[in-house]
């Protein structure tokens, strides 16, 4: 009996050994960043999502409760106010930081005597540790021994002392002032660096064409800085919306929740009450908006590139 023997050749890989080795090397080279990404971003992020759907308290494992924590938070008194406070501080703070930072950069971009000293001085608020800056501002605002009240009453500007941080209408403004003071140097120094990369010839050509200072600013400086502006605003929006120390130390969220922000609530729920499930749900409720911002800016930048 004749046996039919298949002499079909095994499939030959179209990838050469050298190419395969190169690919392996490539994967090995990106492996560290993948490991870092998984350990430092992927795992904590999805772990937080999971935690936000459990009733875990500190030291216990907790059970899955679905969206119960989110529903519970939405019923929380002043949740809308907390949302509003957080975004007011972030958006208003960033807007003012942008204006002040731009003014700082424009000033420091001009040649004048003592410019280097001024640059150093402008960086001071950024360099001072946040808790030191906050306690200093708290002292400035203080009712009994505060600098502002002492000067106002001492010079006759005011007959009575003012409780700045106890005033429900001013407390949020006090927080924003501190946020702006602490953060504007980052904007200023970023814009200054950007301005120094703008070719001088553009300004000279504009001047020849009769453009005044405003026109040069709006048609040359601002467009040239658009990437830096987007990046600084986005980063600062994320940082400022995550502000904790400044609010915690300056007002503690008061008076009557008028400066309550989501980071403070997360701390209270997670650390003070040890309810880590609910605490994880608070920042998760803010994530979609932040993610949306990141996507918008990323698309914008990719389009520009």
């Amino acid at each position, binding site marked *: 009996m004749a046996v039919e023997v298949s002499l079909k050749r095994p499939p030959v890989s179209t990838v050469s050994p050298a190419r395969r080795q190169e690919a392996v090397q490539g994967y090995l080279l990106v492996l560290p960043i993948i490991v870092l990404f998984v350990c430092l971003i992927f795992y904590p992020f999805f772990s937080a999502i999971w935690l936000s759907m459990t*009733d875990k*308290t*500190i*030291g*216990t494992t907790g059970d899955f409760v679905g969206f119960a924590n989110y529903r*519970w938070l939405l*019923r929380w*008194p002043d949740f809308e106010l907390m949302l509003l406070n957080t975004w007011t501080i972030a958006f208003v703070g960033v807007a003012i930081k942008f204006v002040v930072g731009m003014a700082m950069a424009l000033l420091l971009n001009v040649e004048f005597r003592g410019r280097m000293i001024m640059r150093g001085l402008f960086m001071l608020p950024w360099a001072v540790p946040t808790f030191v800056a906050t306690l200093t501002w708290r002292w400035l605002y203080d*009712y*009994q021994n505060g600098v502002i009240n002492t000067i106002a009453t001492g010079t006759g500007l005011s007959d*009575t*002392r*003012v*409780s*700045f*941080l*106890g*005033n*429900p209408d001013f407390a949020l403004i006090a927080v924003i002032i501190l946020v702006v003071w602490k953060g504007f140097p980052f904007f200023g120094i970023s814009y200054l660096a950007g301005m120094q990369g703008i070719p001088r010839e553009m300004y000279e050509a504009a001047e020849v064409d009769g453009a005044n200072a405003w026109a040069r600013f709006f048609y040359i400086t601002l467009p040239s800085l658009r990437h830096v502006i987007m990046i600084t605003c986005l980063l600062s929006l994320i940082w400022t919306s995550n502000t904790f120390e400044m609010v915690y130390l300056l*007002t*503690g*969220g*008061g*008076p*009557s*929740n*008028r400066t309550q922000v989501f980071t403070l609530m997360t701390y*209270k729920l997670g*650390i*003070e*009450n*040890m*309810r*880590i499930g609910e605490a994880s749900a608070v920042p998760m409720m803010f994530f979609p908006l932040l993610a949306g911002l990141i996507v918008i800016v990323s698309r914008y930048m990719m389009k520009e590139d």
Partner: protein
Amino acid sequence: MNQANKSFTNHLSRRAFLKASAGAAATAALAACVPAAAPAGEGGASEPAPARNLTVWAHRSFAPPADEILLNNIQTWATENGVDLELVAEIEVPTMNDRLVAAIESGNLPDMSAIAGGRIALHYPANIYADVSDLYADLAEEYGGFFRPAEQMATIDGSQWVIPYSIDTSLMHYRQDILDENGLSVPTTWDEFVNAMETAQNPPDLYGAGIGLNLAAGDAENTFKLMLLGFGGAWSNEAGNEIVINSEATHEWLNYVITNIWERGILPPNAFEYDNATNNADYQNGSVIAVHNPASVLVWLLENNPEMAANTAIAGVPAGPEGAFNSAGIRVCWSIFNSASEENQQLSGDLLRYLWEPAQYEPWIALAFASPALAQYEEMEMWDDPQRAGFLEAAKTGVLSAHPSPITPASSELLSRNPTLAMVLRVIIDEWTMEEAIAEAETVAMDIYSKYDL
């Protein structure tokens, strides 16, 4: 580079260097795995005494001299008993609370720690405490029994999980000299209190009561809560499983706070920015006549302003229509963690017995400005001092924060929000009606309690 070095470098290729390094590392690793040999000349034949290590966390208080005594006592005990002690004691109570949260979650607890009384119920579900009922019973028998608030704080599900070391109470501090100038006596009821403050104050330099109107002011929450009890109101029933805040008594209390404490202008303008330090500062700098506070105010005055200290009258919280209530809290409870080895749990117990001995305890309690948790120490002469006698009395008869219910995780979570004060602020700052404020308080409380198996 000299010639010898140059020659060495030239002959040591990178591969050779890596080999040598790997060899050295392997040798070092192997060496580390080998048990250390007994040093020559130290009697290598005999077994060396096993090292006894103990990690203790303590926290700082408002009375640093007392802290020093406590820490010295712990250190002395360790030295005398050959214990290698790791003592962490540089942190304040709130920081300690945060630190313990991290330690519980990571499972990296010390052998024993000081715990603020209000945190015990929150920690309990994590099953971290060793049962110290036997030690508790021994100490109670030896020193005349624990006072009631200490017993209530230490006991959960019929067993004791912490050893209360002292009881802290908040009492009214009055400027006796100002009351005298105005022909007034120390108030015993809230009506007397409001009238006296209104009469004696002299705005804008001097206001009546240093009571905060800010959620960060835990002292004010305590004041308003005790006042609520005096009006017959409470957050929950005695069993702690039903919210009863929406009552006629609460309406009466809130109405009294708004129409008397607030509208008669006896609070300073900065009451809205008070925290737990501002009321102390305002009393100490002479801008308010009265504060409701633990002994920290008195401790500061004795050190820095003896004249004002002498002119300070200490009294209980004024009575409402249904009586007077003072608070009792436990500033220092000692816990032993069940994660500690059996030997270290035993060592921790030994240390606690040592700390309770009169030679150690009496000098500490004299400077700690707290009240003892054990009855034997009420015999000390210092309690004859009228300024301190009130603190002892309140420690014996005071009520815990969740009164009339025991402290539970649910009550701890609710009360951590300063909900009594929140009702007041809803009316004053947010201009809600009293009914709305109380209805919200009830909803919040029921919402929080609904999460727990009560």
